[in-house]
């Protein structure tokens, strides 16, 4: 076990902007890193470089003391002792479930009783013991996903890579697979790197979240940290359902803003340099002492109402409410806290 270190990692496919540029990060031993970002941000390319399917054009990847890749050389994927769950699951259609799961063992020269025992254990962990002799084509999406996971388990790899593994599953299955991943991470102790564009998945699973945008690493922190203190508009917009307001805030003001400052800022139509301030909907509350905001939309979401409010200068703010408010009416709200991006 060791740390996985990406050092100034860059990949340029030769078409304008590099797909990945100057990404440096360290995944702690046994950590679970979620690589989060919109599609085309380079997160899958980072994953494929870690696996060894792409070679960096600059920078390097190390696992502990061992150099895996740099611009000059790359250890081939088959020698990295890694495993991967592909978005398409990548199960071999001509092999049975057991043969799929046991293939990494077979390649390593393990056969006979040991092979059967290890495959049996892996299948038991993903609750597929009864399906060992079936072909992948006879399985449902969730079952295929679990076969792919069992194939990762079977050789105790150093690093497990997951490429949007839940993208093709329905909402219900996602929740149960998230649980399976969490158990898998606890038991195996492997370092895991998980690529997703779904922030709730990332927050639920990871010990660390790295947000990428346009090939660059924007911020890496623990989930609670990145939610509370995002850096910049990209992270602020991507994580949670906050609204980003342009407000006149003094430069030397603290980044965490409280209601008095926010009241002055939202009320003033004065000039002055405006800055991005992130306001979470759960921090916008009805308050008799607040300022009157016009309700632009009110949508019932089951557990609450989602409100869209307009500031006096027209900027739009999201909030939650317990009761419906007719559209066009004004109501008094206070903003408990905001975060200067």
């Amino acid at each position, binding site marked *: 076990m060791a740390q996985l270190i990406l050092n100034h990692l860059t990949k340029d*496919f030769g078409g304008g902007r590099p797909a990945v540029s100057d990404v440096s990060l360290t995944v702690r031993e046994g950590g679970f890193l979620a690589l989060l970002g919109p599609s085309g941000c380079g997160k899958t390319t980072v994953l*494929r470089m870690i*696996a*060894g*399917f*792409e*070679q960096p054009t600059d920078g390097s990847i190390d696992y502990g003391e061992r150099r895996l*890749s740099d611009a000059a050389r*790359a250890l*081939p*994927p*088959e*020698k*990295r*002792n*890694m*495993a*991967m769950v*592909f*978005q*398409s699951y*990548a*199960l*071999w*259609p*001509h092999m049975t479930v057991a043969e799929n799961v046991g*293939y*990494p063992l077979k*390649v*390593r020269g393990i056969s006979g009783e040991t092979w059967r025992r290890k495959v049996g254990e892996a299948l038991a962990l993903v609750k597929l013991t009864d399906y060992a002799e079936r072909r992948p084509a006879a399985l449902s999406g969730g079952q295929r996903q679990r076969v792919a996971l069992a*194939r990762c388990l079977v*050789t105790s790899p150093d690093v497990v890579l997951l490429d949007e593994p839940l993208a093709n599953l329905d909402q219900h299955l996602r929740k149960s697979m998230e649980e399976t991943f969490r158990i898998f991470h606890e038991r195996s102790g492997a370092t895991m790197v998980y690529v997703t564009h779904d922030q709730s998945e990332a927050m639920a699973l990871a010990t660390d979240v790295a947000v990428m945008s346009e090939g660059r690493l924007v911020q890496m922190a623990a989930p609670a940290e990145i939610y509370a203190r995002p850096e910049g508009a990209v992270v602020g917009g991507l994580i949670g359902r906050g609204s980003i307001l342009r407000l006149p805030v003094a430069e030397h003001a603290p980044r965490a803003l409280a209601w008095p400052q926010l009241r002055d800022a939202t009320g003033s139509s004065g000039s002055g340099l405006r800055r991005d301030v992130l306001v979470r909907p759960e921090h916008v509350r009805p308050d008799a002492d607040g300022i009157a905001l016009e309700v632009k939309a009110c949508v019932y979401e089951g557990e609450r109402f989602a409100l869209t409010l307009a500031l006096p200068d027209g900027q739009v703010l999201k909030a939650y409410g317990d009761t419906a408010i007719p559209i066009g009416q004004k109501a008094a709200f206070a903003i408990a806290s905001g975060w200067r991006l």
Partner: protein
Amino acid sequence: MRSRHRWLRFSNMAVARTGRVKPGASPAGEPRWLVPFVLACLFLLCALPLISLVKAGFAGLASGNSIGVLTEPATYAAIRNTLLTATGGMVISVVIGALFAFAVSLTDIRGKLTLSFAFMLPMMIPPQVTALAWVEMTGPASPLLKTLGIAPPLGSPQPLYSLFGISLLLGVQHAPLVFLALKAGLSASPRDGVEAARLSGASPFRVFLDIVAPLAAPGLIAGAAIAFVSGVGNFGIPAILGIPAGISVLPTLIYTRLASFGSGTFGEIALLSSLIAAIAAAGLILQQRALSGRDYRIIGLSGANAAFSLGRFRVVVELSLAAILFLVLVAPLAALIASSLVPAYGVPLTLQTVSLRAYEEILFRQTMTLSAFTNSLFLASTAALGLLVVAVPAAYLMNRRKGAVASALGILIEIPYALPGIVLAVAFILTFAAPLPILNVSLYGTIWIILIAYFSSFLAVSLKPVMSAFLQMDPSLEEAARLSGAGFFRRMRDVILPLVAPAAGASIILVFLIAANELTVSALLWSAGTQTLGVAIFNLDDSGSSDLASALSVLVVIMVMALMAALETLANYLPEGVLPWRN
């Protein structure tokens, strides 16, 4: 002859190549020798013959000895006849092919798979057999017409020995190419687009005019161009119909010159085959022009066919399609069988006169036909199996690598694909006429020059199914094997080869099917003892033994049908688009 595999268009490959995220080129997972090996094979098969042809053509021009051929009246006549017959054939192909394509893919007629299968047969039957069958069907000596008592009086001319006859048969032979090109476009036409037009209030006829016809135009243009180019390069039909009537086209002119003057005319035949290549290229350029600006990418659901209900007319359409099939397929084949069963030329076929003498003769007596069987089976099976050694690695590299290597491979493969077979055969004569360097052995006149020419001719046929298999294979299947620890040969054996095996099987059968019946290439390259089945049929007919030629042709048709049936049983395991009658 090579015209018959012109359904193998590679144009959709480029779209597929750029349309999805491909794994990166580096770090390459394959052994170092693989790229040089494939490039060397493809250079030898694709680029070298073309280079020899261009060199000989220039040498002929420069020395001034051969330039005279370009001003001879015979050459002018051949050029004119080539253009006339290819254009006439194209028109007939478009009419018949479009009718079948529209009926099969757009209407609710019954028995579509059977119709498609039967309609594809003329393409799979070698042109010289088609020509022979039609000759046996018409004219004063036709055993079929004699038996039915409707034969024209003896001495009246055979109507097919004419420019019209050649055009008609080229049209029949190449109609399946138009059918395929058009059907591919039509089956991709969006069902929801048609339904949206119906909901917008358009009548079925308006929908056809406003939605279906514009979407079908690119396929129709492509099909017409393929039919034209195939007509320009066809040898079997003008050889059987034109030579007896003294009508020569460029391919038969090359053949007769080479047969009568031998190696002294290399410069001239290089120039003549360059003319063919130029006419073919002009056809393809015209097609490009016509297609530009017609790139309708299909948006939305496609695949499900937009069915127009024919109502009362369904029976009428079904009957007319059956009538056309009867005329172009059943009747000629019946005439062929009838001719093979008569005891002697000109005798009507009755229960008393029916005889299997012709079969006995070709199967047990004639050493010429026996060695033709041996040669063709050897050439076809060696080419079919040997080509896989090039095709599988080439398809693998073209799918896994991008950039310079993939495009170099793509360009090399396009060369023999775009050249008519007769041009390719001339190119091989020019390449191997001189003894091989170092070994000092000449391949010219041996069976090996035919084999190498087959490798070059049928590379595209062999590659197509394997290429489709690789295109449809999820690249992560191989990546998962790599991460499992499997090296190149290990994952080839355990993952890649089992997955492309059905396509490789189809590739073997297709190459065998086409190579075993080939005439164009072997007509120029054969010598005593190395004649192929195609050459044997042609020579038997040429020497007046139409009964023996018919019997041999019947056996060939039976073989074609058996191999197509074998492919049909494989169909469920094959990637889409491999079997032409099933897409």
